[in-house]
């Protein structure tokens, strides 16, 4: 039988950057097909070329037997392709209902929207994903996770032949991931094909039939999932030998944990107006302290408080034994604190500025002689970091928006390392970052620590915490409820600690009710 989608030899160039070069992808009707590759491999670009966001520079695409060239996403949608793009494409000021039904609203006489029916439909679709919320409220009032689920709800509610999901799980917790898988299976039963992009390889084994691997904008291989081992996938993605991969741990933290130095930072029962009730933690020099917790447990809020973004409503902080109460980010930076924020696009990069300008933004005072910036010193410093962190750029004056996510993240990491902070707070430093870059970032963190730096590491990946952290502080609903120390930290102790925090009643409309967080591998859960 002829495949549902067949992409052959597609290439696409953005200015100097060749994003796709001989990309191929074949999807059969009714299969769940994974697309994997490193950051910047071209996955999202391929999807956007397919759905008419970008126009391809060459190659052939056939969908449902027809050669196609969509010039707008609307055309792809009409042809039967529903897409959840990587950057959430939703309108925050509009209600949840509208974000789901917009474009095919139920109508009443005279063409007016039948709001009652629309709300009802939206609620039902969301209920199918295990979400029960007030669909009349503006979407922006809900968490990223809910927003992601709304995007999914929008896509699956269309009668599409192909549903594309570009990293749909990057901000979901495991219960939601499981719900999503349930939905994907239902789609599959209905005969709908799904294209699934994710950096969490374990998910693929759970849900996909087939996998296509891309590297540097080009097709590398495709396999039936049943025939393949994870190590082979990783090797294909990175372009390395399988044996290399297998001898190596999955994170680059590993190694001996050296004993930590003297106490650097301490927070006692801190609370803010923003969902942080009471958190206590200590960080020593040369120590990595992990912050674990479910989605919405308040980890980011701890980071915000320490970095001076939110004022404390209660509690104390001290730095090097002295009382520490920053009033804004600059104050915190002056005292040697750095925060790599969670939302790279909104809170990290200044898209139109160059890599150089982004990298040195936080250390300009020390790079200036008088009013003038010492551009010689600046270039040297930037060169040093590009080299040390192996940032892939065409030149340091390239606008940062042209870089792939992983490389942008490295530039931001360099921005903060350049401030030579005493305490480096990392909020999900490897989210949305591919395995290769992830390991490099982890290595950089480790090097920084080895030189006596202190790290507060927020991560949803247990392996990262277990292998990297000296101690892990467990957060739950805005409170620190436990501290676990390494060695002796295992996934099961962490899961146990997280589940201890679960209260029997939860008043909020939608809080994570599950007892484990991802990415404890779904495979193991099944077994």
């Amino acid at each position, binding site marked *: 039988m002829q495949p549902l989608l067949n992409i052959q030899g597609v290439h696409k160039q953005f200015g100097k950057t060749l*994003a796709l070069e001989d990309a191929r992808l074949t999807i059969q009707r009714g299969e769940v097909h994974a697309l994997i590759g490193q950051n910047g491999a071209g996955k999202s670009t391929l999807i956007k070329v397919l759905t008419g966001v970008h126009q391809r520079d060459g190659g052939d695409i056939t969908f449902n037997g027809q050669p196609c060239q969509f010039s707008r996403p609307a055309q792809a949608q009409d042809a039967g392709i529903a897409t959840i793009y990587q950057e959430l494409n939703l309108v925050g000021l509009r209600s949840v209902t509208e974000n789901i039904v917009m474009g095919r609203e139920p109508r009443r006489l005279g063409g007016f929207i039948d709001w009652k029916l629309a709300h009802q439909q939206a609620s039902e679709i969301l209920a199918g994903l295990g979400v029960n919320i007030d669909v009349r409220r503006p979407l922006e009032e809900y968490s990223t996770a809910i927003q992601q689920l709304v995007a999914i709800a929008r896509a699956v509610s269309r009668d599409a032949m192909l549903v594309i999901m570009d990293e749909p799980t990057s901000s979901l917790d495991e219960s939601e991931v499981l719900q999503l898988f349930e939905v994907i299976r239902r789609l599959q039963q209905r005969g709908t094909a799904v294209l699934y992009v994710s950096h969490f390889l374990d998910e693929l084994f759970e849900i996909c039939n087939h996998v296509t691997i891309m590297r540097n904008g080009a097709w590398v291989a495709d396999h039936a999932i049943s025939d393949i081992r994870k190590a082979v996938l990783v090797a294909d993605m990175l372009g390395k030998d399988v044996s290399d991969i297998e001898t190596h741990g999955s994170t680059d933290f590993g190694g001996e944990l050296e004993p930590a130095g003297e106490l650097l930072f301490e927070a006692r029962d801190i609370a803010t107006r923003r969902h942080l009730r009471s958190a206590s933690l200590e960080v020593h020099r040369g120590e990595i302290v992990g912050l674990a917790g479910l989605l919405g447990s308040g980890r980011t809020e701890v980071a915000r408080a320490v970095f001076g973004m939110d004022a404390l409503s209660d509690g104390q902080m001290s730095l090097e034994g002295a009382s520490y109460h920053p009033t804004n980010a600059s104050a915190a930076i002056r005292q040697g604190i750095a925060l790599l924020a969670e939302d790279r696009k*909104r809170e990290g990069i200044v898209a139109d*500025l160059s890599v*150089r300008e982004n990298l040195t*933004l936080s250390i300009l005072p020390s790079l200036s002689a008088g009013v*003038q910036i010492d551009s010689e010193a600046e270039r040297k410093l930037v060169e040093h970091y590009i080299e040390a962190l192996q940032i892939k750029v065409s*030149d*340091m004056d390239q606008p940062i928006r042209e870089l792939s996510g992983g490389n942008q993240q490295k530039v931001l990491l360099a921005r903060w390392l350049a401030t030579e902070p005493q305490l480096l707070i990392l909020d999900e430093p490897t989210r949305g970052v591919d395995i290769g870059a992830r390991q490099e970032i982890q290595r950089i963190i480790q090097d920084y620590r080895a030189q006596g730096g202190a790290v507060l590491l927020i991560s949803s990946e247990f392996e990262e915490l277990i292998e990297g952290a000296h101690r892990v502080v467990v957060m739950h609903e805005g409170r620190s409820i436990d501290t676990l120390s390494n060695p002796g930290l295992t996934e099961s102790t962490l899961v146990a600690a997280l589940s201890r925090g679960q209260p029997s009643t939860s008043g909020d409309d939608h809080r994570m009710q599950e007892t484990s967080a991802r990415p404890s591998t779904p495979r193991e859960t099944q077994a």
Partner: protein
Amino acid sequence: MKITTPTASSGATTAPWSRYRLRHSGPLIALLLLIGFNALITPNFLSMQTLSVNITQVATIAIVAMGMTLVIATGGIDLSVGAVMALAGAIVPLIFLSSAGQSFPVLMTLIAVMAALGIAMMCGLFNGMLVSRFGVQPIVATLILFISGRGLAQVLTNGNLQTFDNPMFEYLGSGRLLGIPIQGWLVVLLAAIAVFVVSRTRFGRYLLASGGNPRAAELAGVPVARVRMIAYTLCALLAGLAGMISVAINSASDAARNGQLMELDAIAAAVVGGALLQGGRAPFIGVVIGAAIIQLVRYTLLANGVPDEVALIVKAAIIVGAVYLQSLRGGH
């Protein structure tokens, strides 16, 4: 990611300049075309006197447009520049025409200039305060002074035209250096300072970052609110200076007319010169060229006897054309 040109992981030194040139070539080409057109069509165009006339007339637009560019770089806009011109322009003669001014002409002229700049600065602080501390949208925040600033100037002068004879102050309008009107030199000086500030100083970097992504800039330790305050203040200061120049040229201050519709000319000059209304760019050279384009269009139409009403239509078409070319080249 793959780069088609040979990958150089460290900075190629020519890159920033070629980028810079590319950005500015659009307005420059437009300006050269206009000059070429005039050389062919307009009588007596290629003369020193024409140059000097155009410099006199472009100076105020260019100065205000540079201030506007600062504000636009932060993602804002300032509608109040014309009103600030009127206010500053009204203050100066008010002071040196007073009885104290008659008795100490030199001192009081200086004081008058300082007072006018001081008032302009206060206007800028007011705008900056509303925008950066209260989070009011720039169009709305500056609309307040747009409406009431000119009214205030007229209240102060009782609506009367103030004519005066004060050679020292008039030098600002009619003085010459090496045969070029003094305000032309002023524009060159200010543009040089502005280019230096934006490309080489911390404030310049902060300005672009604040406009490009205020949230990220804030978190990177950039004092975004202060940068905005400074941008609005400088903009008002420059508008005040332009207001005084225009008063000095005319030897008269007319609160009702001084700087009227200047905000539109200044914004048009900035955008034609390559500024992006969403912020993050401050191409001062381009903006000065943009002002020159606006001025030259006006000159061309007038000198060739195009009636006022037709001139409006032509001017509109040229603004749209220039911005369109700009957007094609900029790729945004």
